[in-house]
């Protein structure tokens, strides 16, 4: 690794607040204890978090008869021996900046993701393609050692710098003894956690980061064996569907029975059957799959009874406890942030009452005093009773104003899918079902934009699937004024 005529050059890319400075100090000390020169410098930026930070180090053996070497302060393309990234997209950034040379650079990275703000704030899925970066790392690195160090340090209760040090040591890219690195970690409050994270990371890196190869779980979905009367009724019917639809249908039917009743699931199935007959893609039934999935999700729309039902699920408490790392027996309080609006209350009323309420200023004024932001302690028995009461309202759901309103939109979308005369067109309209998202204003925005697009489709007989997809992308941009070319009919009221 080491070149006789020069230095070992190392660049570290980390995110603000991840301890890149601490890691750099450990490396300096390791070099010192091994009788090497080490010069480091950094672009740590300011105190704020989330920005990318760069550290640069050069190492060289000390020779008693020679003066201190002249070391560079810049990482340079074609001159990097070791590149370390605390997150996989940052490894990608180093590749893109040309720091990874196929003949020279060992790339060491934790391959977990820390999402950037643009990935997080997209209304749908804006996250980047991790596999692409992994593939490039393999191709451009002289060696590419990567594994999920974030998972390791979370398990050991420490920070990523300890695992990175383990990976650097284990990679053998620096000619220092393992004990020399370990000794650095063996003092201080979190020595135990640091050392175990270091050791595990060291081992993984030594085996090239591959560790034990666990093939991904890609076994095909198979329907379970019926264990109750419900299963005996439904499983054979699902089994009759084309193979590619069975998994989706299994989840959808279960969801709709849970949401309403068997008749509701029956309704879904008959609609999906119509889609199957209509599907030109006989092989995988892509239209029935896409439209059926969105149909099930939309039919199980989140109204007050549904939210209440989900909030009192038997498994929810243990999920929260494990997520916040509560100790066994430790009291945990859960305060939920609800903000019921007039619209949601109206949605629960019979159709005529609901529309009357939304029209009556007096009723709205009086009711609004009872509504608005509420923080409810759902670990309390009283709130559990309230939520269970609200959840049970679902048996009257079909007669409510909210249901009628949603139903109208669902039907309109479904009919548009069914009546499209080309497969691509039907697929594009089916995909619009994915726009239905959120609550309150967001929900109003997404559904009304969906209706606007359907209006547009109706009024523009020559529009094609790519135009619809483009409209969908534009509609998912939350902070824009959305106007699909043509004048549109009145947008629906919020539910």
């Amino acid at each position, binding site marked *: 690794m080491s070149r006789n005529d020069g230095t070992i050059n190392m660049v570290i890319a980390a995110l603000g607040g991840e301890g890149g400075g601490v890691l750099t100090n450990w490396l300096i000390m390791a070099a010192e204890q091994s009788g090497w020169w080490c010069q480091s410098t950094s672009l740590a930026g300011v105190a*704020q978090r989330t920005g990318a930070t760069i550290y640069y180090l050069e190492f060289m053996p000390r020779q008693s008869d*020679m003066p201190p*070497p*002249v070391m560079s302060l810049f990482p340079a393309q074609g001159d990097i021996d070791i590149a370390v990234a605390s997150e996989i997209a940052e490894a990608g950034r180093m590749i893109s900046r040309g720091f990874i040379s196929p003949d020279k650079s060992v790339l060491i990275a934790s391959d977990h993701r820390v999402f950037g703000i643009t990935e997080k704030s997209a209304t749908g899925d804006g996250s980047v393609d991790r596999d692409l970066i992994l593939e490039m790392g393999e191709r451009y690195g002289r060696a590419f050692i990567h594994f999920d160090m974030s998972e390791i340090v979370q398990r050991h209760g420490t920070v990523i710098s300890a695992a990175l040090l383990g990976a650097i040591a284990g990679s053998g890219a620096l000619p220092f003894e393992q004990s020399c690195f370990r000794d650095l970690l063996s003092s201080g409050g979190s020595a135990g956690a640091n050392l175990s994270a270091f050791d595990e990371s060291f081992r993984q890196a030594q085996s090239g980061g591959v560790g034990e190869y666990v093939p991904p779980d890609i076994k095909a979905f198979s329907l379970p064996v019926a264990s109750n009367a419900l299963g005996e009724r439904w499983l054979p019917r699902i089994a009759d569907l084309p193979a590619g639809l069975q998994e989706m249908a299994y989840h959808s039917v279960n969801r709709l029975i849970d949401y309403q009743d068997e008749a509701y699931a029956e309704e879904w199935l008959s609609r999906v059957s119509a889609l199957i007959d209509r599907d030109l893609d006989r092989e995988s039934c892509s239209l029935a799959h896409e439209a059926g999935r969105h149909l099930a999700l939309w039919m199980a729309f989140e109204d007050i009874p549904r939210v209440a039902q989900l909030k009192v699920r038997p498994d929810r408490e243990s999920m929260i406890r494990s997520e916040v790392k509560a100790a066994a027996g430790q*009291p945990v309080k859960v305060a939920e942030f609800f903000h019921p609006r007039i619209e949601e209350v109206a949605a629960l009323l019979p159709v005529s009452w609901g529309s009357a309420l939304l029209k009556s200023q007096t009723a709205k004024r009086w009711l609004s005093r009872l509504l608005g932001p509420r923080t409810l302690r759902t670990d309390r028995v009283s709130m559990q009773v309230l939520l269970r009461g609200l959840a049970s309202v679902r048996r009257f759901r079909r007669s409510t104003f909210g249901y009628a309103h949603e139903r109208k939109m669902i039907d309109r979308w479904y009919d548009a899918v069914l009546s499209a005369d080309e497969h691509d067109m039907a697929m594009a309209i089916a995909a619009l079902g994915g726009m239905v998202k959120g609550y309150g204003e967001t929900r109003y925005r997404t559904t009304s934009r969906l209706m606007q697009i359907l209006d547009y489709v109706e009024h523009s007989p020559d529009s094609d699937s790519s135009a619809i997809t483009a409209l969908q992308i534009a509609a998912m941009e939350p902070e824009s004024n959305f106007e699909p070319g043509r004048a549109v009919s009145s947008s629906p009221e919020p539910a």
Partner: protein
Amino acid sequence: MAERSFTEEVKKLRAGEGEVFKGEGILAITKALLQSGVSYVGGYQGSPISHLMDVLNDAQDILGDLGVHFEANGSEATAAAMLSASINYPLRGAVTWKSTVGTNVASDALSNLASSGVTGGAMVIVGEDYGEGSSIMQERSYAFAMKAQMWLLDPRPNLPSIVDMVGKGFELSEASNTPIFYMMRIRGCHVTGEFIARDNVAPEYHSQAPVTPNREPEKIILPPFVYQQEREKIAERLPAAIRFIEEHALNEIFPGRYDSVGIITCGGSYNTVIRALQRQGLADVYGETDIPIYCLNVAYPLIPNELVQFCASKEQVLVLEEGQPEYIEQGIQTVLRRQDVQTRVYGKDIMPMAGEYTGQVMLEGITRFISEASREDIPLKLSLEVVLGTETPVSDEDISRLMAELPPRPAGLCTGCPERPLFSAIKQLQEEMGPFHISSDIGCHSFATAAPFNLGNTIMGYGLSLASSSGMRHALPHKAISIMGDGGFWHNGLTSGVTSAVFNEHDGLLIVIDNGYSAATGGQDIPSLVEPNLIATTLDSSQPKRDSWQTIEDACRGAGVKWIRTVSTYNIAAMKETLRSALTTDAPGLKVVVAEGECMLNRQRRVKPLIRQAVSEGRRVERARFYIDPETCTGDHGCIRLSGCPSLTIRENPDPLRSDPVSYVDNSCVGCGVCGTNAHSAVLCPSFSRVELVDNPTAWDRMLNATRVRVREWWRVRDRKRMAKRQF
């Protein structure tokens, strides 16, 4: 209480003669100042020299023992004015700031100082914030050195050179009666290394040994002395400086065997030059070079004799000078033309005019120089083609695929930052009232101009937001809105902004963000900092608690502001209402909203040890963090668009029917409550919960909990049985 504590490192400042001192460049400079018998130090924080201020702050007792006076100045202008102590007396003084912004702020005092001239050595350590990692507009401090006639030192970035040049700099300043810029680049500030220390030297004059007051009218900047001073600069000070620089060999010549070519570089770029030569097989790692190098550790003034001497025997030289315009190259050309030296000078004709001279730029430049100069006799390891190829080994196609997948990572507000709820409130208000034009300022809050808030139109300088809105306010559809941090307020905003706005009957809104510290530069204390246990309201309460010290509110009232409200930033609903009323009120004059909330980084540093201690002592402690129900989250990420908190992120949707990721709160959550408040005030969704963990529960806690657990368990068993029938 700054972001980083140097308590351990400053012990090194006591190192005596012959000890090996190891550490960062910034720490080495501090040590060098003490070794030089400095009498007073000051400055204003800002990267890359924030740590210098932090080190000085943490080294108060060492400074005190020596009798060195330290001030954390209110602004760079204050710091520059401090140097007037060196005009009449042989007091050595040093101040520091971020340049060029700080130099701009300080320029009035600096110009006058440079005109008066100094008796004691006066040094301004400028952190040249240029190139990658910089946070300001890109300019050079060099221009100021030339126009005010201050000398500019740019030493080689290794600790012995850095330390040596501090001492030499003071001597040069005194020998030429001229104040000096000592320039440190970003990477040089943070470079680590070692040098052999010398004993610290106590200043000759201090509180126990005062000077005898001494008036020298000819040093006052009034006519007729100013004309004499201008003549003196050229007739006496410049020649004295040149003489000193030559005699003490501040610039270095490194000979090489290809004697008919040469490289002239600034000291700060020397290491990069050596690396480039080394990669071309023209130097070794110890700096032995085949191409002669003239290294300008003093970048201004140029030394004509040395230049002529270096160039006379050379056919071609390459001038390596970062940034634009190419002042040094022009200066060199002038010197050589006047002396009729016919050496061909290469510079910005083959080097990039703008930007940093990185390793790759330097390698390309030197390679191009050798080929342009047609020096086939000089063997190169790498041809120009190969060098250009090393810029990136990645194919164009891969680059474009990769660039499409790499998320930008702009610096953003920290987890739990008190400024986040303020911007959430403004964003919500903007949705109601229509688009805002906002005059922004320097500070953490500058990041609100980026995603996800996208709030703010212009940034004119530190504390200048209110001033910068004054030309706009008559032409806006809404009252002018300016946002300023507490740091900017005390630095400049009170005078340039508030006082001027009141005087001009500015009917607009100023939001001053009061987080207790100069947070963006590393959490340094500022005038409105209060005792830590009383500091600005944060999560603990929605009401401001401050009433008994010098506050931003008092300062504004003193300047004549009538309409002032102080609101906790975490109370989004109250903030929205207050801002709405400020923007709609008929009350004349400036409306000031002080948005209070302690810097969360500082708060965590302060509170974490207290919580740990309380838990270990068995006291009852509640810790909160937030949780998002993956079952009710529909993956629209409206919460993230209103927040951008690092702990509010996304993860794979557990729902087999959904594909878009759900929002997720990771374990770095500090429980600031903004998620919940946003869910309420923006009517987002019912997925957010605040989960409180009780440590060391009391008997009552345990009893209550046990009862609840029992009831819920009964339900759970019943529900599981029912669900088993309703699912298959």
